[in-house]
């Protein structure tokens, strides 16, 4: 299995931990894909230690300023990702996860589909299927 973790903030420890804890399996490959709003994931990696604590292989990549959602999907196709995980940064007063533009665009993208799972800290698009 292959997982993409979209990183919108260097403080995104809870969603990373939730994903590695409950979704990713030991031995699988995780791609940390940081958005242009994040310059460095060093501190996050030092905090989480994905290999020591979760036994996953991982690489770190980035998206350039002005990227489009299609770039995320292309990346997912390239690495044959089985799931994409996006952090939840805001909830409504009744506790519902607020879906931001990026998340919505991925969910609605015409070339990708999957099962939507909403966790405490992350939204996960599981069992990805690509229509290219």
């Amino acid at each position, binding site marked *: 299995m292959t997982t993409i973790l979209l990183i919108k903030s260097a403080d995104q420890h809870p969603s990373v931990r939730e994903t590695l804890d409950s979704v990713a399996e030991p031995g699988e490959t995780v791609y940390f894909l940081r958005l242009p709003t994040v*310059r460095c994931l060093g501190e996050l*990696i030092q905090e989480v230690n994905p290999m020591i604590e979760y036994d996953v292989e991982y690489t770190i*990549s*980035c998206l350039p300023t002005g990227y489009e959602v299609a770039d995320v999907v292309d990346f997912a196709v390239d690495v044959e990702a089985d799931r994409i995980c996006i952090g939840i940064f805001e909830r409504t007063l009744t506790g519902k996860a607020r879906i931001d533009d990026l998340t919505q665009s991925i969910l609605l993208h015409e070339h990708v589909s999957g099962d939507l799972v909403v966790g405490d800290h992350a939204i996960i698009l599981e069992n990805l299927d690509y229509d290219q």
Partner: protein
Amino acid sequence: MSQPDENKAEQRRSEVQREKELVREKRRRNEGIGWDGRTLREQLAELEDKTEATGHYAGFERLEFKDEQPIRYEQLYSRLRGDLVTARETSKKVSATPIVEQEGELCYGLFTPEGDSIAVSTGIIVHVHTMSEAIKFMINHDYEESPGIEPGDIFVNNDPHVGDVHPCDLMTIIPIFHEGELIAWAGGVNHVIDTGAIGPGSMNVSQASRFGDGAYYTARKIGENFELYNSWKKEYPAKTRTPNFLKLDERTRITGCLMIRDSVKELIDRAGVETFKQLSREAVEDGRRGFRSRIKRTLLPGTYRGVSFVDALYEDQENVTREYANENHIMHAPSELHIREDASFQVSFEGANKWGWHPYNCTPAAIQGGIWVMLTQTVIPNELVNDGAYYACDFHLPVGSWANTQNTETAHAYAWHFLVSAWAPLWQHLSRGYYARGFWEEINAGNANTSNWLQGGGIDQFDKLHAVNSFEAACEGVGARYVEDGEPHASAIWNPEGDMGDAEAWEQVEPLPFLGRAVKPNTGGPGRRAGGAGFESMRTVKDVSRWLLYEMGNGYMTSDGGLFGGYPAASGYILNAQETDLKERFENREEYPQHDLDPESGEFESKIDGEITRRPEGISTPKEFDDYDVYLNYLRGGSGLGDPLERDPEKVVEDIHDGYVLPRHARDAYAVVVDKVSDEAKHNSAVQGEWAVDEAATEQLREKRMAERAEKAQPVSEWYEQQRERIQNEQDLIDDVKKTYESSMRMSQPFADFYREFWDLPDDFTFELSEESQQSLDNRFDSGIRPMWDSFTRRHKTWLDVDEEPYVPYTWSSRSIRDLPDSSSTFSETGQPAGED
């Protein structure tokens, strides 16, 4: 500049411009300067994660390159290593100080992007890791964002809290880029003459805190496009008494770094960047494995324990900068070395006492670097010397102790005084292991604190403000080996290629003419194998004004105890003469003192009139000296091995003829009776004449000595009872000793429990201290910590995790590492709290 050099410089400048464009392009794509678009901090974080998770550097479980192309691997690594040595040998000629040019107090390293040394040059290889720490500091504090790390940048560091032994070791570090990626760092470090401390010299001793240590340059960018900033060029020369020397030292380091950069570029051109990357990773893992393999082959698993002490006496010293610093200190370094079946190597200093208001405090980089310099010469002389050793060793350095102050107020100018004294038991740990496995050639009685540092400054013979720092100390007696005597006046363990330097070279830069230089008798520790003798230089002072000099070394105490019944080397003392009649003696062609070979003979005093100071101490604060005053620079010897009564009497006569032992000392220390057979000296003897063994008298004397020993001997149980009573009733214990143990007990509950249990003392036992000592301890313990690092790397946990149980265990009381299932286990994981079964 010659035309070829001009062309080379121009080529470098254009390369830098092209590389900078590539870096900026990557930045526009939100990529970092690390490999594959990562930032350096991401790369470091990932490396540490992978290394710890897999137990192999960067996760390299297989050395693919080495396994598949062993000859090519060795060729390329040897080429790199050779180029580092060439860089050192060539660039040291740029320097004008004998410290660099004569003694070679200079070292270069090539580092991975994450700051791990791949290879180091010869020289002061203590810096195999200190520069690593400086690079890791820059990475972990996001220098990539600010001030930026770009092709052509130049960085400086001398902050021991960041990565250095002490601030007089100035380092220059440059990044090496290839196609927009940072592929390596080149770094050079040398010992400078003067750091602009409160007293002249590189390692002033009168300051209470870092604010008297001199200038600290904390991992700073000082140039770009291989050009120093004007602001830097204007700043640092004004912060030292020896600006021209420091300028040339800096050019030395930059020269070497550029040579290393060229070497890496050439290797990449020849072999490809992927090969270089693979080589750099594999070399560190190879170094780690080499270390482990040697440990497995030469030592026995288990816990090795020892302790060392050294004095730092400041009571009633003049010119101490703060009243509250006017007190004596004794360093207490209890050490444990744990070696487990998988050859893990863990050193714990649990029980070390508190840091002090003196410049002998250490930082982790200093301790780790210092211990590796000795390990490279004992454990891994034939393996790759690089940061593989860093990944093969774990240290526990209690936070707040002298070994790891984590307080930026503490002074560190001469961290070596405690550092080298503290590693004395480590020599013994290793030697006992070698003995048990039959590696007798490897056994060494130890090389501890054998220095005096002649330092000072004022207005010199050229009417210029100047400072001096004699590095004759790079040539000292070394410890005895199991199979041979220690080498006399040979080297210093912190610079294995040490040399005393030409007297004339020192005289060119120091207004301190030599009156004499000689092997010093009775300085090597007696033993079946004798410790190497030290030597001495008698210096006078000429054509100076407002000139200061001071001493720095051990005094009452010697930190190396000798091994297997061998004796320690002689400890230090101070000999000065002021207001002398030397000028008149020169004019009248009368005898004058050239040596102090036998301090008890009165010979020195018979050849000079003046105010003569002899003190059995090793440290003095800066004192005024004038023309024709005299200063003895006495460099100590190494410790002995085995019972001196087992030394072949003929060897003792050879020692007399070589000037290592005085005839009367032959009787005292070796029970060898010698007779003078001729007044005419045929050998290199410090004592005129020829000597021969009186075999019958020697045999008789040795029998008598053995009988005396048997008579004096007592069962340990009796001795223990006497000592316990002494401690319990605090009889004949000076305040300095009580303060030392009290400090250790306050630093460490496990040590306190151990101490009380061992001596069967009440659970609430504490020493009664004088009001001054109590106040001093309270002041220091109340200071808390002021760490320099905001974000520690994962590897730092080995010395930082101290809340309950440190990562590196200690086994005071009745615990044993054999209770732990594997090398990564700690007692906290087994649910066994500190100090309990």
